């Protein structure tokens, strides 16, 4: 009990003392997971739209793969990305292992199926007649897609939030491909593991609180946009 109270007290001290290392770690988490989410959106939104609207054979099978991908365990992704990026691996010459870029790659693989799968779900719950109506009104395919995205913007933003949530909180992949290197690839989740291992529970609690705060602020911003969209 003492530990919890002391931990939380010291956590707040750390948060407000402006410890440069804590902020460096937080900023890196935000950048890496933000970029991974953005890339997942760039990949997942078009692919998900194609899966939702297309009428080609094999798409249902692909969708089942994407939905399975939503449950990809981060450590498994971490293992495979490591094997590819290690010097002994096929992509070893890129020298990406133990860099923030490697974490972005792994986190993109984790978040992309989430964004894709939820994009499909978001678009498929629209009235299918909407598409034909739009096309009938003379919209080009691109204009129709744009209109559908706008129509489904609330669940699409939820897809984005879920993607971000899946990567900001994962530790397995970041630890394996990033290596938790101080000043280079240490992010909030791996730092929590390290500080716990060192017995520095107060720091671990502080970093954990920061992680929650960060996730909250990002989701607050997205929710705000989402609900503004909902009102009118």
């Amino acid at each position, binding site marked *: 009990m003492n*530990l919890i109270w002391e931990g939380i007290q010291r956590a707040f001290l750390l948060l407000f003392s402006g410890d*440069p*290392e804590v902020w*460096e770690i937080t900023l*890196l988490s*935000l*950048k*890496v997971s*933000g*970029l*991974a*989410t*953005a890339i997942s*959106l760039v990949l997942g939104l078009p692919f998900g739209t194609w899966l939702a609207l297309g009428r080609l054979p094999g798409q249902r099978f692909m969708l089942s793969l994407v939905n399975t991908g939503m449950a990809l365990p981060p450590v498994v992704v971490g293992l495979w990305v490591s094997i590819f990026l*290690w*010097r*002994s691996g096929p992509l*070893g010459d890129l*020298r990406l*292992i*133990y*860099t*923030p*870029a490697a974490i*972005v790659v792994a986190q993109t693989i984790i978040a992309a199926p989430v964004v894709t799968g939820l994009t499909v779900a978001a678009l498929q719950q629209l009235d299918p007649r909407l598409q034909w109506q739009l096309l009938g009104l003379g919209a080009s395919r691109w204009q129709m897609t744009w209109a559908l995205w*706008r129509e489904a*913007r609330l669940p699409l*933003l939820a897809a984005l939030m879920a993607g971000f949530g899946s990567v900001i909180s994962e530790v397995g992949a970041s630890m394996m491909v990033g*290596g*938790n*290197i*101080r*000043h*280079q690839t240490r992010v909030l989740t791996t730092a929590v593991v*390290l500080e*716990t*291992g*060192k*017995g520095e*529970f107060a720091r671990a609690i502080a970093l954990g609180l920061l992680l929650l705060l960060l996730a909250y602020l990002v989701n607050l*911003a*997205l929710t705000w*946009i989402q609900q*503004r*969209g909902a009102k*009118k």
Partner: protein
Amino acid sequence: MNRRFSLITLLIILSLLAGGLAACAQATPVATEAPAAAEPAVKDLILATTTSTQDSGLLDVLVPMFQDQTGYVVKMVAVGTGEALKMGEEGNADVLLVHAPSSEKELMDKGFGAERLLVMHNDFIIVGPADDPAAIKGTATAAEALKKISDAQAAFISRGDDSGTHKAELKLWDKAGVAPQGEWYQESGQGMGATLTIASEKKAYTLTDRATYLANKDTLQLEIMVEGEAALLNVYHVITVNPEKWPKVNAEGATAFAQFLVAPETQAVIAEFGKDKFGQPLFFPDAGKTDADLGLK
């Protein structure tokens, strides 16, 4: 309204992208100052080491010193000794700082290591709950103590992760003539710090290096039971990965790091490390000594 909505979304995505790209451009460390020495040809140096050196905080002191002196950028990966040795064998690391002498010798015999130097030692201790259910406190040798633990079926937490500490533990069981298995023998599969916490919570015995125990002592309800025997020495060697086997390794950087660890200045830092915080040193510098000097065979 819709136009504004998409505009805001676009802005957010763009800023996320920009931020992320900036992060990737910063693959080099933010905190190190301009290096004093001439820039090395290949700056990245991958050091595979054990969780015990990281959890004790020693490398957080030594690595920045080395980076300032030489201009290398060290990527320190803390894993179990088993994985660290494997990384050396596959050429995925440039230099190793490890503590499993017999496995290290195997690596050298297979030709994967170029140079192997004695750096320092500390010692393993057996810790356990204060009420000492197997009555091992003060036992002369670790093997005898382990025999008592297995006879009493008292809970024992093993690292179980092929780390240097785990290898040392298995060797001691072997010496005790016991094949540890049963409900009382549990494997945590985690680092030393986490394993100590588990042992403390479960009122169990465990084998730990002294440094990690001292660093975590305040949060643990564990006491030292057995200590101070040659079989309990925990010896660290630095190994440079053989560039003849793996041409891609940063051999120059690896040699520079190995030489840095055994330099008198660094050895003095190692000898002092931990004294201010724990009242006793965590590691004892051993550069230039041989295994025989330490009382090993």
